[in-house]
């Protein structure tokens, strides 16, 4: 546990540098599977939050409106469909309303200094369980051929993701913080990217060895 905290602290200090600087990997096994699963649970709290999941939708290409601001879950209003382009080229570009600036007004359009768009279909998370998303995120064939370090680095440089923690107006931000989320991904990764449905045997063995 001390090792984990040491490296969590290290990543806290070096979060911005994750993309460009190789962090010292902790000793093999120093971050337990159990701890990795705890980190994963926090990661799931983030990736299943409306600020993230409303745009991580499936191949029907409908963005969603869900979360405290909307009462009940529904598709994005105005019959908006982002199309196979995932950015609305086929009908209404997301950028028509989602500009470089977030509207602070209730139900105004949020925006970032990047192209507003849906996440790829391979990263469809809306309505998915913790284990389903975990399996997807650790599978290079479905996560954009990324290692867990790459996933963490991706969070650092993609400003549309940063918006989730600074959504503006009265929108509820994603839980924890960007730094903490990156740390959780690193911890999860160094623990061997465990998922909830992994065999209980491995977890038992890991706990026994502690």
């Amino acid at each position, binding site marked *: 546990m001390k090792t984990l905290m040491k490296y969590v602290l290290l990543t806290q200090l070096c979060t911005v540098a994750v993309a460009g600087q190789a962090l010292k990997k902790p000793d093999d096994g120093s971050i337990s599977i159990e701890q990795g699963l705890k980190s994963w649970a926090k990661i799931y709290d983030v990736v299943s939050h409306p600020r993230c999941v409303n745009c991580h939708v499936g191949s029907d290409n409908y963005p969603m409106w869900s979360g405290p601001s909307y009462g009940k879950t529904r598709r994005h209003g105005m019959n908006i469909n982002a199309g196979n382009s995932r950015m609305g*080229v086929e*009908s*209404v570009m997301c*950028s028509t*309303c989602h*500009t*470089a600036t977030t509207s602070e*007004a*209730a139900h*105004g359009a949020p925006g970032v200094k990047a192209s507003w768009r849906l996440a790829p279909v391979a990263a469809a998370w809306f309505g998915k369980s913790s284990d389903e998303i975990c399996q997807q995120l650790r599978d290079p064939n479905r996560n954009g051929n990324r290692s867990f370090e790459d996933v963490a680095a991706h969070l650092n440089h993609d400003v549309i993701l940063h918006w989730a923690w600074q959504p503006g107006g009265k929108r509820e931000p994603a839980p924890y913080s960007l730094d903490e989320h990156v740390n959780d991904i690193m911890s999860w990764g160094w623990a061997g990217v465990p998922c909830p449905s992994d065999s209980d045997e491995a977890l038992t063995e890991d706990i026994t060895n502690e």
Partner: protein
Amino acid sequence: MQITVNGVQHEIDVEDDMPLLWVLRDELKLTGTKYGCGIAQCGVCTVHMDGLAVRACQLRAGDAQGRQITTIEGLGTPEALHAVQDAWIEHQVAQCGYCQSGQIMSVASFLKFKPNPTDEEIDFALSSNLCRCGTYPRIREAVKTAAAKLRGEV
């Protein structure tokens, strides 16, 4: 700041975060672009930025600097209407007319990507431009005519 609207460069003294819609209507007196909801939900304030539809109520004046803004006044001329404007007159689309400049600007942008749209595609594209008079059937027909005109078929 300098802002280019309908090919004309203007020097204006406004805050960076003033909505483009305010600049157009209050500073430049281009009142063809209308105010509706102010939160990007109705589409009446639609203009083009570098040829693509944007909601003028959402766009900060500062973000429009260095870009080409086109309003309904600059889409065509009385002597040479844009194909969408021409089709709108042909189908007598407007009832009260308040939403129509936004509708036309949205369609002109949409047809650049979809030169031969289906009914479903038109419905998707125009659902974000509200018409309280319910002129949607005429809008759909006018879009098809405009598309045919732009394809050079009529």
